[in-house]
């Protein structure tokens, strides 16, 4: 393939040059249609000292959008950078502000990971929306210089029985599978939640993990005067620009504009080739800086590269290879066509760069070079159509401290506890007898949010790359990084938005607590956090309160737990009409293993037959916001108590126990409490257990129902070999952590037996648990 720098198109435009703009200050510009507020437009005029050109307006409008500028969230997000200790920064190689954070793993290895949302595109066209969500987050990982090694997909859909849910579910799952599978990225976990609150706003979040050697780390900056700027990968089309040509001032001389795509179609093959080709560029050190193209496309890539660098940049826009020759300059700048990357290459490496492109059959075009004038200058056939300080586009956008207040309904919501609803007869009498408890466990395990998700996960490759040590349905996804030593990482994503709705501060902390606990339960040491903050409209002060509280809670919790937020994403305006979704701050925690062979399975294996089953932690009467309350259509009260010190201690104990071979199985307690955790542990390998609730009931002063269904935090179940029991007890006693020996693993029984209450054959449990998703989705 040859360098194709000549423009294929014949269409000509009325080009709005900088010179022209200076001469025609009174030209009407469609800033409002482009989503800018009057004050923002005036600020642009002030910055430039003249009206913007059409192309400049296009750039500022996309870069100053909520999505790209974080204008409503910035003032709050700062806490992630401020509430940190030196200890937390120790292994942080790259923090918030780059495409993804990078954490040192030692021995020259590093890991990068990030979670992002693709919510509204996935509602419009679930397959392509979800697919391109994976594509986008993976490009962020590549642009750090890393090889992507795994993906995860936290998903939230509407009610399972709503007629539209199957459409979104089928499309999103198939899209994530299609794109991730085609890239050769094992899917190592995610979440699957059904709740009517997401009916018109499903949440499709995507996480990617990458690994790199320290020397391969790349940043998004353009440095070195005279270095070349290159755009490579897919051609630029009209994707993501919107239905109409919004830039009225750029009219066509000759042709009618062709339609702009309503949705973007992903090309996973093109992206797989991009991955390999980028890795080859990194290996041979052929790029100085690199940036993926996502939201705001070339506008974002050029302005970020230039403003992160020490000079400026000069780009000739007609050099961009186009899929649609009718695109105007402004549209080219705004296009969000997928599977593209931009890089900075020294003149000496141009030839070698081109050879890599030729090998992988990737199209590319040289757009311009790095300058020393601190300006981003974009020309169209040599005529200057953009002349800006790149910082003003990329970094110095508007910042709003939006008003917020506690919702008017919050007091009533908090007062409406589960117990009060039971007492008032608004919730039917609770199960009490063994038979009733048995039926309740079956009901719980077949409910949409606890049912078997293998309908989903079977559509994902979790073997590719050969390093997956754990994936769904275990507590965390685990991949090996170093084949020599077995060193690797674990990741889990979590959020219970019912908790967050009841108390956004505590709920966000509980989201961190749960993902932290999952990683620790697997046996890994938590090291870093990424978050995807899915909320309603920031212009609604009650939503803004939820947002502010959630960030404050998460930042405080990260500081207490000693894990830094390394990056993330904010998704606002998730609401149908005036009804926002429940605040959904999805938290991803990443942990490290010295050797992934130490990972702890989340179920009882036959080898664990006869081992002692311990419940770690204390059970309180905490049913507000619980899965059991959901079964009874109740949501009110306060979420379970947050105790981060205990959470951290539990984590330490689980990690030590795994490292020292004291436990053969471990599973954390979360949604559905002890009932769900025990069920999942026997279902995992079809190996049963006999347990008694007596000690827990007596020690913690709870009844059997509460013992089974309470969602008290900082708890886990472990299976301890007989030979290790003394060591395990000594360890927990020494650290003052309450544990109760609740039973034994019983392979022969084929059942979950809760003594004095019920016997539940695993096959019966499995049948109910496995039936739910196929019943609705085929």
């Amino acid at each position, binding site marked *: 393939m040859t360098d194709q720098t000549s423009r294929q198109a014949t269409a000509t435009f009325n080009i709005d040059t900088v010179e022209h703009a200076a001469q025609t200050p009174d030209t009407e510009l469609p800033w409002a249609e482009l989503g800018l507020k009057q004050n923002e437009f005036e600020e642009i005029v002030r910055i430039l000292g003249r009206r913007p050109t059409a192309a400049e307006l296009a750039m500022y409008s996309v870069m100053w959008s909520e999505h790209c500028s974080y204008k409503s969230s910035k003032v709050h997000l700062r806490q992630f950078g401020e509430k940190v200790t030196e200890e937390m920064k120790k292994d942080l190689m790259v923090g918030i502000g780059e495409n993804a954070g990078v954490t040192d793993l030692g021995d020259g290895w590093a890991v990068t990971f990030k979670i992002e949302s693709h919510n509204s595109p996935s509602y419009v*066209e679930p397959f392509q929306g979800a697919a391109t969500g994976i594509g986008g987050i993976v490009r962020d990982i590549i642009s750090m210089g890393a090889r992507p090694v795994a993906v995860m997909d936290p998903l939230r859909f509407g009610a399972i029985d709503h007629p539209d849910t199957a459409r979104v579910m089928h499309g999103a799952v198939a899209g994530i599978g299609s794109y991730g599978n085609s890239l050769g990225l094992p899917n190592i976990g995610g979440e699957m939640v059904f709740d009517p609150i997401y009916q018109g706003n499903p949440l499709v979040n995507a996480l990617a993990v990458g690994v790199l050697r320290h020397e391969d780390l790349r940043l998004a900056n353009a440095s070195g005067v005279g270095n070349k700027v290159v755009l490579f990968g*897919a051609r630029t*089309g009209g994707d993501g620009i919107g239905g109409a040509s919004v830039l009225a001032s750029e009219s066509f001389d000759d042709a009618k504009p062709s339609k702009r795509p*309503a*949705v*973007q179609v*992903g*090309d996973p*093959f093109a992206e797989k080739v991009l991955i390999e080709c980028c890795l080859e560029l990194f290996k041979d050190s052929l790029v100085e800086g690199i940036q993926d193209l996502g939201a705001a496309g070339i506008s974002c890539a050029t302005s970020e590269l230039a403003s992160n660098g020490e000079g400026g940049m000069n780009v000739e826009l007609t050099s961009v290879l186009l899929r649609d020759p009718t695109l105007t300059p402004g549209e080219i700048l705004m296009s969000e*066509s997928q599977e593209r990357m931009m890089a900075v290459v020294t003149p000496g490496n141009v030839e070698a760069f081109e050879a890599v492109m030729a090998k992988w059959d990737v199209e590319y075009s040289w757009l311009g070079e790095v300058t020393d004038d601190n300006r981003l200058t974009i020309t169209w056939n040599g005529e200057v159509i953009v002349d800006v300080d790149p910082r003003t586009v990329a970094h110095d956008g508007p910042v709003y401290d939006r008003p917020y207040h506690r919702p008017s309904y919050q007091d009533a919501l908090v007062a409406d506890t589960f117990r009060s609803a039971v007492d008032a007869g608004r919730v039917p009498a609770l199960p009490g007898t063994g038979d009733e408890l048995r039926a309740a466990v079956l009901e719980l395990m077949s409910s949409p949010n606890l049912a078997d998700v293998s309908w989903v996960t079977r559509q994902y490759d979790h073997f590719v790359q050969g390093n997956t040590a754990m994936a769904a349905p275990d507590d965390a996804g685990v991949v090996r990084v170093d084949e020599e030593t077995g060193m690797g990482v674990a990741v889990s994503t979590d959020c219970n938005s019912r908790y967050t709705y009841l108390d956004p501060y505590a709920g966000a902390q509980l989201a961190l607590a749960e993902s932290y606990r999952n990683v620790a339960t697997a046996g890994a040491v938590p090291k870093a956090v990424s978050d995807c903050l899915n909320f309603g409209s920031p212009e609604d002060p009650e939503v803004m309160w939820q947002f502010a509280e959630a960030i404050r809670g998460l930042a405080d919790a990260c500081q207490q737990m000693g894990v830094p937020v390394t990056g993330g994403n904010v998704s606002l305006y998730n609401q149908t009409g005036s009804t926002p979704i429940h605040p959904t701050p999805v938290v991803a925690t990443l942990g490290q293993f010295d050797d992934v062979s130490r990972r702890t399975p989340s179920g009882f294996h036959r080898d664990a037959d006869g081992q002692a089953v311990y419940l770690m932690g204390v059970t309180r009467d905490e049913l507000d916001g619980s899965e059991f309350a959901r079964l009874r259509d109740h949501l009110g009260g306060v979420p379970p108590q947050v105790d981060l010190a205990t959470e951290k201690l539990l984590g330490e104990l689980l990690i030590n126990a795994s490292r020292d071979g004291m436990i053969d199985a471990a599973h954390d307690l979360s949604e559905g409490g002890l009932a769900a955790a025990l069920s999942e542990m026997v279902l995992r390998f079809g190996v049963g257990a006999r347990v008694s609730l007596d000690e827990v009931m007596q020690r913690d002063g709870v009844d059997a129902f509460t013992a089974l269904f309470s969602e008290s935090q900082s708890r886990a179940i472990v299976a301890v070999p007989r030979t290790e029991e003394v060591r395990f007890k000594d360890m927990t006693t020494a650290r003052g952590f309450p544990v109760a020996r609740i039973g034994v693993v019983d392979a022969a029984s084929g059942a979950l037996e809760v003594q004095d209450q019920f016997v539940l054959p695993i096959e019966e449990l499995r049948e109910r648990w496995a039936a739910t998703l196929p019943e609705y989705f085929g």
Partner: protein
Amino acid sequence: MPTIVVDVMPKPEILDPQGKAIAGALPRLGFTGFAAVRQGKRFELTVDGEVTDEVLAHAREAAEQLLSNPVIEDVVNVEVLPDAAGHPAEGPTA
């Protein structure tokens, strides 16, 4: 039994990765002279009985609602297949 053909193509403005890959492969196999390729779908519906206007209208509706995704595809053709060209389905399918 008569057959109705429904042709569905990706909308022109939408990226067609499959067509792109084929277009890339053709010259490597020595087939030059093709500037672009788009890949769509062709459905053959076997009609149980006569093709009345109503049946054809039904097929058109099915084409819009089920056989194509209006967000990314266009139904470009719905027609009755001339008898001889019939390429019958394997048999009745429930």
